């Protein structure tokens, strides 16, 4: 357990981890009294940028390995993958258009949205689906894709399983086999500059451990 007195542990985490990490925070703080975990949620690339510009953070949890690799110089140790995510097709509840897989998305008159190829989910989409899709929009992040589907504006969108889970009853997810070719891996690492090296290590292990596994699974992440 943690040291006496209060210390603050700053965790830079990808925005898609908002829900799971917020839940983890409570459990971690209950076990490690005296440690106050605070999160900065933003896009992984933004967080990497900030770390490179001297942000004081203790732990970095990225949504992809590319961004983790940008901050190698600032890491205390090797990053460890703690979760994976897979693409799925989000459709209106009950799947009224009867979409079964990627092939159906090419049907004329179907409004499909995906992530832009520059962002991680878009890269994954490219990898899984190639360039066959003719989307009406290439969104800047996966939440924007989801929003278009929940708003009824798009008939289908390629999003992560976690997104379908968090949207609850507003969308239905249709898994497709090609998604396995583009599994997205979430690495976590403590940062070298941390003044709370011990707590940082503990948090990293907590995320990688059973408690982390449980919360992450609950919101739809896959095991590493």
């Amino acid at each position, binding site marked *: 357990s943690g040291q006496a007195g209060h210390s603050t542990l700053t965790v830079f985490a990808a925005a898609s981890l908002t829900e799971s990490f917020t839940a983890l925070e409570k459990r971690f703080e209950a076990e490690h009294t005296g440690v106050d975990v605070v999160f900065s949620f933003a*896009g992984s*690339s933004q967080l990497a*940028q900030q770390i490179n510009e001297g942000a004081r953070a203790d732990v970095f949890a990225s949504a992809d390995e590319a961004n983790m690799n940008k901050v190698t110089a600032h890491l205390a140790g090797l990053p460890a993958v703690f979760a994976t995510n897979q693409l799925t097709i989000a459709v209106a509840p009950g799947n009224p258009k009867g979409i079964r897989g990627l092939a159906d998305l090419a049907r004329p008159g179907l*409004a499909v*949205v995906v992530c*832009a190829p*520059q*962002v*991680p989910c878009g890269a994954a989409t490219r990898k899984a689906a190639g360039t066959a899709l003719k*989307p*009406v*929009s*290439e*969104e*800047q992040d996966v939440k*924007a894709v989801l*929003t*278009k589907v929940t*708003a*009824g*504006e798009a008939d289908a969108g390629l999003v992560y399983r976690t997104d379908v889970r968090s949207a609850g009853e507003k969308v239905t997810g249709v898994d497709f086999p090609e998604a396995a070719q583009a599994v997205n891996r979430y690495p976590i690492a403590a940062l070298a500059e941390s003044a709370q090296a011990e707590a940082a290590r503990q948090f990293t292990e907590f995320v990688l451990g059973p408690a982390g596994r449980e919360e992450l699974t609950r919101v739809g992440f896959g095991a590493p």
Partner: protein
Amino acid sequence: MARHDPGGIPRLLWVPAACALALVVLPVVGLVLRTDLARLPELVVAPAALSALELSLTTAAMSTVTCVILGVPLAVVLARARGRAVRFLRAVVLLPLVLPPVVGGLALLYLLGRNGFLGYALDAATGVRLPFTTAAVVIAQTFVAMPFLVVSLEGALRSAGTGYERVAATLGARPWTVFRRVTLPLLLPALGSGVVLSFARALGEFGATITFAGSLQGVTRTLPLEVYAQSESDVDSAVAVALLLVVVAILVIALARPRALEGVR
């Protein structure tokens, strides 16, 4: 005219003015210094950047025009009409100013999207669907930019008072003539500022556009969206594209803000 400054600008003001200028200029200078200027030409002629630039300029121009056409009348009504309702409306106009742009885009989607009550009617009546079209970009930009025009014009209208408008009425000018020949010309300097503000806001619009209009190259992906997309993979090139945006904007504003708009006295 060879008019003297009556004593000039108080010295005390130069200090904060210089600070303000530094706050604005230094970061941009820092940005330029960090940019690999050698790569700039290559990035700038990239088709994605060019098409985004073109789209940005067209849509921002169109939405600025829309802002003027709709916003000037609204500002006049808000500044000149009386009653409690007007005081309330004055606050309502500020809504898009404070709404986070993404939420603003969502609001537009809820209204004009396929399931929105206006969007549904439009679709049923004319078969037109707004989202994911260039028109949607213009609407989103107008939505966020118009309050800037309205608020700045309203303040100017109120400062100017109604003296000349009253004179015009005694000369037999009906309200529309008064508006066209007196109110509007006297408003020109403020309109200049308002147009610059709303054009700049429209040009930089990001959140509402991506939410309401999406992001498709050549159709809805404006330069800010392109910058954002670039920044995910390559921050440096994103910065370069952003600088392109800045240069173009400054040029457009400098050229499109003729001396006529700078003052009538």
